């Protein structure tokens, strides 16, 4: 009888070796990556609740393996989570076919996939933290790729440092968990120990996800790493950690009601605010991606701490949609970085006019960026909508803030794309001294037209992804606190007083109404004096038609 977890770990590891051998032949390397992920997804699609006869023997997906006091076991929800992770990795590997992401991207990516999968399935959970640090060391090499030079290692080092700092948090949580489970403790004493464990664990997750606004890895990694590697870290690595968080919520009742919850929510709010405040004003694509990631990490953490069915679905959906959105942006950016020294808007001005590949790159960035910001019609909209709806059920202002942050990301991408498709300024002294911010005004119509193919490109995925995310949320009822709420003693529910809807709405809308004029005036200021904007839009539209004629 073969354990499913062993196959999931070994298949990528074994394929990493030939992928490394063929690293000079990118097609073969990509093929190896796709083959490994495809095989694992194939294994994961087998039924969980019965034995499966394969050529090499009988496979039992849920069969545990025990060694050195640890257990490696794939649960039903791990099966779905891993399927999604490997599918996302497959997409990113496929995207790396035409743009070099460093010779170690696929071989090390496969090793990281294997180690992260082990981290998801291994128990006691302290070992997961250890495995995530090992994966982070390999990711640091992926971030560096063939990028050389002084100060070029900051992104890789920052990611490695933050992941390593999470090590004592996981070990500490493991220690307190063991102590709390020791016999002879009173319920109160055990509760205190569980509280300590939950705070340590929460801190560990915050460090692993890089969920703090300053000195985190997002900006440095987005700047130093090849774009698809950034996407790999944000989706595959952070996605696995998110699924691990959900798995712990499913398994450990004390973690479900953790004390550190408030702190994590506060951290996620700061991430959203800082990311949203910075995104619209960024002047380079790498910094813009970093700000978008900050918003996304914040939104994801909020979802992880919501105790409803939709939040699990939103986390799962986010992994898929982020892969597609960030993958599209990354592939476009990789092409453009090959044509310019860096990815500043000023440097890339007019880059979309330099050939077909550059136009496609601009299209990919536009589609991906709009999807990241949740523009209706893109796959990102599905995720953002679920996120906003979930949060709005408990906190309307927060939901509005989240939407504003997403809009800020969208504005940032509009500015970037408008720089890409605008005419390159002539190299006169006046043009050289011109502030790029003045030139990069967002032509809304151009971007809307560019984004038109995006829904058709993405429309297949939501329907494919939705059932999977639904199944995952059904497999994790405790993470959503539904069954947990049934099993645990129910508090006596006081009869709720009648709610005056008008009053509640007024109460909720009042702060918004105060901030609305500020937002509108900022928008007017940003788009550059309202009388001018219509003429600019008309000019942009005519320029677009002439551009694509």
């Amino acid at each position, binding site marked *: 009888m073969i354990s499913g977890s062993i196959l999931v770990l070994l298949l990528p590891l074994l394929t990493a070796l030939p992928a490394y051998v063929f690293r000079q032949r990118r097609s073969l390397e990509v093929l190896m990556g796709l083959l490994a992920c495809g095989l694992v997804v194939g294994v994961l699609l087998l039924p969980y609740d019965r034995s499966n006869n394969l050529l090499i023997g009988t496979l039992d997906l849920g069969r545990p393996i025990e060694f*050195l006091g640890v257990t490696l076991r794939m649960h039903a929800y791990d099966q779905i989570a891993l399927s999604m992770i490997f599918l996302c990795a497959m997409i990113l590997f496929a995207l790396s076919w035409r743009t070099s992401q460093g010779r170690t991207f696929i071989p090390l990516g496969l090793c990281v996939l294997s180690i992260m999968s082990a981290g998801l399935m291994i128990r006691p959970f302290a070992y997961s933290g*250890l495995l995530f640090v090992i994966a982070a*060391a390999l990711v640091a*090499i992926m971030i560096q790729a063939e990028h050389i*030079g*002084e100060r070029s290692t900051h992104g890789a*080092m920052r990611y490695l440092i933050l992941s390593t*700092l999470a*090590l*004592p948090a996981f070990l500490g949580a493991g220690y307190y968990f063991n102590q709390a489970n020791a016999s002879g403790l009173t319920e109160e004493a055990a509760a205190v120990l569980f509280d300590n464990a939950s705070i340590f664990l929460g801190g560990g997750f915050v460090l692993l996800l890089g969920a703090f606004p300053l000195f985190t890895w997002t900006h440095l990694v987005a700047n130093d790493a090849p774009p698809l590697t950034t996407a790999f870290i944000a989706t595959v690595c952070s996605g696995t950690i998110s699924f691990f968080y959900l798995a712990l919520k499913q398994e450990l009742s004390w973690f479900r009601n953790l004390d550190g919850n408030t702190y994590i929510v506060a951290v996620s709010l700061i991430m959203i605010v800082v990311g949203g405040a910075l995104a619209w004003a960024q002047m380079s694509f790498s910094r813009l991606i970093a700000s978008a990631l900050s918003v996304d990490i914040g939104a994801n953490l909020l979802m992880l701490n919501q105790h409803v069915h939709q939040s699990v679905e939103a986390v799962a959906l986010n992994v898929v949609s982020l892969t597609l959105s960030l993958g599209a942006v990354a592939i476009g950016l990789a092409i453009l970085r090959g044509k310019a020294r860096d990815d500043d808007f000023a440097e890339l001005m007019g880059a979309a006019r330099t050939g077909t590949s550059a136009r496609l790159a601009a299209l990919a960035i536009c589609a991906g960026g709009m999807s990241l910001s949740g523009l209706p019609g893109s796959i990102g909209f599905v995720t953002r909508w679920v996120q906003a709806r979930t949060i709005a059920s408990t906190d309307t202002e927060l939901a509005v803030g989240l939407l504003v942050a997403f809009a800020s990301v969208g504005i940032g991408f509009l500015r970037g794309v408008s720089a890409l498709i605008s005419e390159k300024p002539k190299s006169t002294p006046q043009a050289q001294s011109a502030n790029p911010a003045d030139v990069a005004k967002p032509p809304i119509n151009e971007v809307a037209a560019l984004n038109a193919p995006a829904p058709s490109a993405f429309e297949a995925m939501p329907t494919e992804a939705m059932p999977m995310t639904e199944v995952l949320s059904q497999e994790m009822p405790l993470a959503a606190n539904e069954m947990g709420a049934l099993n645990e003693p129910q508090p006596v529910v006081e009869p709720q007083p009648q709610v005056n809807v008008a009053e509640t709405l007024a109460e909720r809308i009042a702060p918004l109404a105060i901030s609305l004029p500020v937002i509108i005036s900022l928008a007017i200021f940003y788009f550059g004096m309202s009388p001018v904007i219509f003429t600019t839009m008309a000019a942009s539209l005519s320029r677009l038609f002439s551009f694509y004629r």
Partner: protein
Amino acid sequence: MNDVIALIEQLSRLAITPLLLSLVASATGIVLVRNWRLTLPILIAQYVLVGLLMARSIQPSLALIKLISGALVSFALSIAAQRADDMRAQRGESIAVERIRMVAWRSVPAQVLLRAVALLLVLTAAFGATTRFPLPGNARELHFAAYVLIACGLFIIATTPEALNIGIGLLMFISGVELGYIAVLPNVGVSVMIGLISLIVGIAIAYLTLADSEPLVL
């Protein structure tokens, strides 16, 4: 192999004070000096000391893992650092050996004194943490050693820009965490895994050291 294990067991029974003082001295050396030809040998000595301290709590054969992984990591780092120095020498930049042979005494006090003052604060903080936030268990001396390594590791990480020095700080931090955990909850699996982490982090740092040595490419 049995002789080595027996030797570790005997050495671990030595008085704790000299071991702790040696550990503090090694941490001080690594913090003050930023020359890999000196810091890497000190790091190996520090791994030996950490192994001996660990052997007081766990089986000496497990402490041997720490020694071996530490030696391997230091060896990998020294190869990378040597290669990086070769590349710097080709560009006519100053390298580690030259900086030892011809010490720039005028600039030394400014750098070293600042680090020494900061180190004093860090060591005081480590001592304060040992008394104010004692780890569970009775092995106070191991807790102090763990706090010293963690604090000095973090200090190096925070104050140096080069990949090699940050890596050395990171390895010290990992050693401190391991020592603290082993003192609280001796565990074979965790020891083996942290040994593996040290090795892989060491390889990653060696790779980054090589990348760091090249001139900036725009």
